[in-house]
């Protein structure tokens, strides 16, 4: 067969090969993102995502969206500009959460016996869907960054509140008031994680009374906008084909 001959003999075979290629790429993308995004999120979000007694209304709300919008922005850049596929953010988050659940269930619970209701991951899917849809409707990186990035930050806390609210019910314990999440952190001993490492409820945001979560979410959304731009450019740069010679294309 010469180089100019096709590798397939019919349109049906071409379609079949194309679909096989789709699934191979999709599987590779999914698992590569699962690994890379998971490591990134564990290193940057870490304990805020691991433990319920870190999931507070100030720092978790602020940090988690900012450090998690990274891979979705980059993968969106590749899948949208190259293929017009508005699934970059959702595929990242679905992959991440599969990896997180495997980790939390097999390692945190199966290996070290921390209860799953103490170490479940944060829910990032609402923000991811909205981010993808905004990119699809607007077709603009700027619009997606500004509107989508802000939505990413704003949807995070309410998207997780139904999951964590039961653990914020107060309890009186030996003369002190705690939430059930605090009590989980106290009861289920983490030898390598002393209480003072826990970064919750710190900061100077003291003029909004008890309603600090929305303010934190807005701040997180603003920073997410900037991070979105940065990682979207990373994604575009990585999706370039400059390194392939023209005659090979």
């Amino acid at each position, binding site marked *: 067969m010469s180089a100019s001959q096709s590798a397939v003999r019919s349109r049906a075979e071409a379609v079949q090969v194309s679909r096989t*290629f*789709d699934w191979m*790429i*999709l599987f590779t993308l999914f698992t590569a993102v699962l690994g890379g995004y998971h490591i990134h999120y564990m290193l940057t979000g870490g304990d805020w995502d691991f433990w319920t007694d870190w*999931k*507070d209304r100030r720092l978790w709300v602020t940090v988690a969206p900012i450090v998690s919008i990274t891979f979705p922005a980059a993968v969106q850049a590749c899948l949208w500009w*190259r*293929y*017009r*596929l*508005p*699934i970059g953010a*959702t595929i990242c988050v679905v992959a991440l*959460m599969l990896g997180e659940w495997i980790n939390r269930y097999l390692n945190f619970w199966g290996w*070290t*016996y*921390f*209860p*799953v209701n103490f170490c*479940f*991951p944060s*829910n990032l*899917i*609402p923000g*991811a*869907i909205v981010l*993808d*849809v905004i990119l*699809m*409707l607007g*077709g603009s990186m700027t619009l997606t960054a500004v509107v989508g990035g802000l939505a990413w930050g704003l*949807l995070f806390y*309410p998207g997780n509140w*139904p*999951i964590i*609210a*039961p*653990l*914020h*019910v*107060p*309890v009186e*314990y*030996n*003369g*002190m*008031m705690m*939430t*059930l*999440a*605090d009590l989980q952190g106290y*009861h289920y*001993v983490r*030898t390598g994680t*002393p*209480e*003072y490492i*826990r970064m*919750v*409820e710190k900061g100077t945001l003291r003029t909004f009374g008890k309603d600090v979560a929305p303010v934190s979410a807005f701040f997180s959304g603003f920073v997410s906008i900037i991070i979105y731009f940065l990682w979207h450019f990373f994604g575009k740069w990585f999706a370039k084909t400059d390194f392939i010679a023209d005659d090979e294309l």
Partner: protein
Amino acid sequence: MKIIKDKVSKLSFVALLVTLTAAMFYTPTASAHGEKSQAAFMRMRTIHWYDLDWSKDEVAINETMTISGKFHVFSGWPETVDKPEVAFLNIGIPGPVFIRQGSWIGGQLVPRSVTLELGETYDFKVLLKARRPGDWHVHTMMNVEGGGPIIGPGKWVTITGSMSEFVNPIVTLTGETINLEDYALDNVYFWHALWYAIGLAWLVFWVKRPMFIPRSIAVVDGKADSLISPLDRKIGIAFALGTVVLVMASMGATNDAYPVTTPLQAGLMRGIKWIDIPAPTVTVKVEDATYRVPGRAMQMTLTITNNGDAAVQLGEFNTASVRFLDAEVYEDESGYPDDILAEEGLTVSDNSPLAPGETRTVEVTASDAAWEVYRLADLIYDPDSRFAGLLFFFDEEGNRQMVTVDSPLIPSFI
């Protein structure tokens, strides 16, 4: 020949993979906590644990036990370790094999970090409830911000029974009794499964159609706009609006279901009460101290003055939780772990009762394999080659006085 070589290479590679895979299934239980690896000067000159009592050696699931005793915050705290201005009374166990039902310093519950004062002694208690069966090494531990975990003595405790029987009932301030072990777990699974299904639905909507090659060709040919149809847009809007509506509705429903919630509790606890110990009437001056490497023994020349009104004898030297006793003066009956108890490890050149008003210079030798086993001999490699510890003096009636010592240490290699 080449075929044989290739086959050998392939088989070798397969064997390597099989070996690596098999290695993953060998996961022996980690039963210690690195207490021997911690720098010796840190164990000797920070927190001194003593009068420790593990209330039980064996407990059944759901039963409780306590670890209680005292710790002295050494006044000669090393400069290379941050002071215990933010410290946390922890427990050294391999994961939550027990739950910590309570921990107290000076009678105060300490679920949070505390500030400790140098030179003071505190009593403490930790209440543990058995959760997972097995033999576990249970250590006292003080975490110090900027200093790391300072681990105390450990003792083996056996938990019997089945973990499936473990319960952790808690009564909330809203009057509900819950089992914290699996409380709200169904809720966690439900919301994660629901959102995951919605995310998958969005992906399936797109991946069910031809993706990479034909779409890439279309984009390169300038037909990118044709790849998003009006129906795609409508369905996208439905997903986005549905997402926002579901988030808002579920948040509202949650607030109705849980009208009383509070933020996470945090903060530093100051003003922890220490034990008001009378100043000792015995004073000790360390004239010199050497560690004889071949003999695994530390020798000190001490000048001891008894300013009290009763004769005293030196009965114990305690450093880094290793206790060296003079068996003729004091015998331990607390069940202290054998591996860190040298019952006849303390020798004093003249340990006859030191009369009131008398001053005597004596040679004291603390010798035991524990110097090597617990890597205290590594002190000679530390950046600040000093030793420290507690000396306990006893009078005839069994009254005890504690005196701290802190001095440079010179190694002897011959």
